[in-house]
């Protein structure tokens, strides 16, 4: 199994990081988050249409760059660092992954290229965001392929051209393709804590759909693991940004005639945070390598998701606390990363859920 990044992977990180610093500064994040759409289509075109960031994990025959979970993670990490606003996570990391793992060859051929080059914005509809076991209980497909039911929270459904729905019903759990705007589909934007990631309630009443693949329990777990690994990378990027800006702030802010970073209470908190982030980052990078190699601990993605979520929230809490009053203002950017951290902490399973999932797998393997 890989233990370090290859030259090409480091290069990818450099390119993505440079592009995002340029296209997604905090001012752009603030502009996008205030809009209903939630992102800037011109930037989307540049990052996905031109630079191919939505297809790093998609095979070349389907219009992607031929990478895997590691490449997906690299992009996710850099996006988390800059708090990129846009449907990349829903479309590339979630819907793209579901197509890769569950769709039949012909459907994959038809649907993936659009997702990979960003011309299709897709999302994955899961009726349970806490764990794979409950997915498919609230949405069912009838014998004629029509879908009914509700998903309480769906990422970026309000802008999706294509909804991939995991639904139960005739023929067992399956992946169904539904066009955005299909008759009977109701997408209702929700009020959210994290304005940089849009959520909608999606209701289906006899919505025409097409079954594009079977979703076994194993398939669903694989999809879940890949999404969680990507999300862990995004959180590590966020944690790193929070940490660096916070440490820098302590070097510049003076109280009692000295920089606050010279106070030991703050130094020790930063040292502990560094350790927590280093460990979580190692687990996160490891999870992607395990997925690509099909080796290592089967619970690696759950370790990563739990550790990265805790580390990112620690960094977020310290980010506010070590700034004092200014940290609690709307004007200061720290709360934007705090809110993303809070959202990601609970999306696809809280740390406690992932620790329990890990223990269940570990005991199953014993």
């Amino acid at each position, binding site marked *: 199994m890989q*233990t370090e990044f290859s030259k090409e992977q480091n290069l990818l990180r450099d390119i993505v990081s440079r592009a995002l610093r340029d296209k997604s500064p905090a001012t752009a994040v603030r502009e996008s988050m205030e809009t209903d759409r939630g992102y800037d289509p011109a930037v989307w075109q540049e990052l996905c249409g031109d630079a191919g960031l939505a297809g790093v994990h998609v095979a070349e025959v389907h219009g992607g760059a031929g990478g895997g979970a590691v490449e997906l993670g690299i992009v996710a990490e850099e996006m988390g660092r800059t708090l990129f606003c846009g449907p990349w996570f829903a479309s590339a990391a979630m819907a793209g992954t579901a197509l890769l793992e569950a769709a039949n060859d012909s459907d994959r051929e038809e649907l993936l290229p659009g997702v990979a080059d960003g011309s299709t914005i897709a999302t994955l509809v899961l009726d349970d965001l806490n764990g794979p076991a409950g997915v498919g209980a609230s949405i069912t497909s009838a014998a004629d392929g029509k879908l009914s039911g509700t998903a309480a929270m769906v990422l970026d459904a309000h802008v999706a051209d294509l909804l991939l729905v995991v639904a139960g019903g005739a023929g067992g759990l399956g992946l169904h393709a539904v066009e955005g705007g299909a008759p009977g589909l109701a997408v209702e934007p929700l009020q959210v804590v994290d304005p940089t990631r849009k959520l909608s309630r999606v209701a289906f009443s006899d919505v025409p759909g097409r079954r594009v693949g079977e979703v076994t329990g194993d398939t669903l777990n694989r999809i879940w693991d890949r999404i969680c690994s990507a999300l862990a990378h995004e959180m590590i990027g966020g944690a790193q940004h929070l940490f660096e800006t916070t*440490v820098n702030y302590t070097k510049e802010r003076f109280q009692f005639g000295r920089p606050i970073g*010279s106070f030991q209470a703050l130094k020790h908190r930063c040292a502990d945070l560094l350790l927590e982030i280093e460990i979580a980052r190692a687990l996160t990078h490891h999870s992607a390598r395990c997925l690509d190699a099909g080796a290592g601990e089967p619970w690696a993605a759950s370790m990563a998701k*739990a550790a990265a979520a805790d580390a990112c929230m620690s960094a977020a809490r310290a980010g506010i606390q070590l700034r004092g009053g200014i940290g609690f203002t709307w004007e200061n950017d720290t709360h934007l990363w705090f809110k993303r951290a809070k959202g990601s902490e609970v999306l696809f399973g809280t740390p406690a859920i992932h*620790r329990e999932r890990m223990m269940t797998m570990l005991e199953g393997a014993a």
Partner: protein
Amino acid sequence: MTPDRIRSEVSAWLDANWRTDRPLIEWREILLDGGWAAPHWPEEWYGRGFTLDQTAVVAEVFREKDAVPAAQVGPRGLASETILACGSDDQKRRFLRPILTGEHTWCQLFSEPGSGSDLAGLSTRAELKDGKWIINGQKVWNTSAHHADFGLLVARTDWDVPKHQGISYFLLDMRQPGVEARPLRQMNGHQSFNEVFMTNAVVAPEDLIGGEGNGWHVAKTTLSFERRGFSRRVRGSSIDGAKQGPIYEEYEEELRIAAEPYTWYPQREGRVDLVLPRARETGAIADPATRQEIAKLLCLYTGARLASDSAEASRKAGTTEIIPAGSIGKLAASVIARQASHVHTMISGADAMLSGPDSAADGIIAEVLVSVPAISIAGGTDEIQRNIISERVLGMPKGYRADQGPFRDIKRNA
């Protein structure tokens, strides 16, 4: 060299040279000359410049063939790394070989009653008289000093300069009338560390290492190596079970004495390896709260190992670079040990009151509970590691200092 290539070379060499009827030292001489005693050392000094991963392959072959390795136990590694990094060629010639053959054992004479964390505040005195260094003072908490042949000694040679500049580093012969080691009993009942009294002890001028007044730099080299040791065991070889042959008897005897102070060291790291077996055996594995804590522990443990592997994979011994990253590993080891101790307590419940043969795992778990407090003190406390990480890794500003100017004028313990 690829792992396969290393494997076949070591195997062939051992097939030609390894015999169980040689005296231990004689065998180790052959081992040294064959270049397989310390493959991670530089080529000029008995080694092959291997990475630690390559060295691990060598150790594996030794284990498979039940071949006795070079001497490894105890602070001899601190001595060899320090001498490799900072010693003169003459010192390397005199000291490195007997370290590997096992003829010399070492100890670390750093801490004093008046200065532990503040190592540079030490007040053991070294004075040059008639061409010899005369040492007077007291050291404390010195592991293995009661049977060591040599000590890594830091002492003050100049009292009129700022504290870090007046320190020199010596290689002290412990077998002389002016040196006395008295064992101290620890909270876990073992007697691994000592107090060491030096009364007109003598060091020859050629046993000053790194130059007069340059001892602080040499000491940091030792400490950096010591701290890295907490996060990554330099994977040595060891032989499992009793084996027949005269050389094994000698080897067992060496281990019995040299390894005795360290029998509880695995316990101070928390015995993570026993957590799942104990949880299954007791049924605690079914308790949701315990499962959460076990999972946290395994995340910490796995993540810390992955992080230190990637930081250390390509490092070789004998480099002079002092890495504050060792402090991250040392702090991680502490955090892991505390969490493991917490989990062992949860698993044992009221049985955690017992020790000795009445207790779980024949007293091992009880020993974990009373040994873990050592890991956040020995080798520099957690607080000191956090100071180093924040100042040297993160570049946070130093706090107010009350210990500047000539050492003579600094307030210190009576």
